[in-house]
């Protein structure tokens, strides 16, 4: 991956937007990696959670194309364990919202098989649609 580092990118609108929506100060993160160590979805993630926050710090918008932000389960493990008090679950949510707020859905509701719809409890459907549809 090629990424041009520049101070300008670290102060870009993208970074500001994520800080604003999440309410988190991204610069508090010192890349200790503890969030990634406890993340339940990590085995499937293209970038580890600590890499996600690093890329956002550097203004790398391509992080939005990564599956990582959609694999986050909002389990809050990272949030309770971060030694610097960063709530990464909020950063993940802000990143998802940048896409969802353009009216783009991650979950394709029409593609859920009928037999699955018959067994899935309301709590699964409502939470999934709230997190992954606009």
């Amino acid at each position, binding site marked *: 991956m090629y990424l041009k580092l520049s101070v300008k990118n670290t102060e870009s609108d993208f970074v500001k937007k994520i800080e604003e929506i999440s309410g988190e100060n991204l610069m508090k993160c010192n890349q200790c990696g503890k969030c990634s160590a406890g993340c339940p979805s990590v085995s499937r993630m293209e970038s580890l959670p600590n890499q996600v926050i690093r890329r956002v710090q550097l203004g790398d918008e391509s992080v939005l194309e990564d599956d990582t932000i959609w694999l986050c*389960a909002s389990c809050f493990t990272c949030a309770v364990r971060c030694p610097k008090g960063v709530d990464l679950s909020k950063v993940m949510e802000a990143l998802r919202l940048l896409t969802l707020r353009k009216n783009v859905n991650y979950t394709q509701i029409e593609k859920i098989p009928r037999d699955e719809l018959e067994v899935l409890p309301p709590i699964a459907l409502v939470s999934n649609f709230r997190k992954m549809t606009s």
Partner: protein
Amino acid sequence: MKIPYYPGCTLKAQGLGFETSAIASAKAVDIEMMELQRWNCCGTVFSLASDDLMHYIAPIRNFIRVQEAGYDKVVTLCSMCYNTMKRANLLVKNDSEKLKTLNDFMYREEDYKGNVEIVHLLELLRDEIGFETISKKVIRKFNELKVAPYYGCMLTRPKEVGIDDWEEPQIMENLITALGAEVVDDPMRGECCGAYHTVNSKDLVAERTRMIVTSAKNRGADIIVLSCPLCEFNLGTRQKDTIEIYSDFSGIPVLYFTQLMALALGMGKEVCRFDLHYVDPRPLLIEKGIIEEGEEKNAR
């Protein structure tokens, strides 16, 4: 004590046995849970964005219902409802401006004053009734039934809403002990089950289910007990999908803590709705001599 009770959607569907066993066993320890009138879905997940007030309307409206009924406390069972409502409540209690905006938006309702408290049934049992009192009411013997408590995410995280320590919770362990069953110490009890990924990534959930259920089983657990209908679906019903992917996997029954309690207090069969669970616990309960052969037929 009398207390309004917020059920949430899934307790009226797949999680019905959670509700019926909870109401019955709470009654046996002198808690009368009265279903809140005109409650609505809490939204199941708390919005983590700082600019997303719309998603707090559902939980806050439920607090208005409690206020209208003349109470300042409401009890809930589902871990996700508990978490979502508690966080929304905390948010408006600490931010009068946001509370005002929400109240203005719901101008047809009376204003929410921010004075209602939400508690989980486990907290009521620990703090108001006491596990010692509960243990004195135990009728049925569990004959060394080994039980692994599973907390998942929403009962203990984040810190400001957790009902117990977020790394070393003891509340379910203490209840299980009070009910006369054996606690299995399981390090996976706070690991996420994959939650709503069950809709579009069954294989991710199967990976989690395999890890969590196998861990409990390898430590000797006969059953897992928990407090969330989504965890119950993922760790229970999804055992079917887990076996399809991992042929070496074999599961164990997954129950709600209130079903264990109802059984202990001697009234399991009418209220437990074991038929709603993918892994039927009845053969195990008969084998252990906890329920009798034939009794399970009435257990619906």
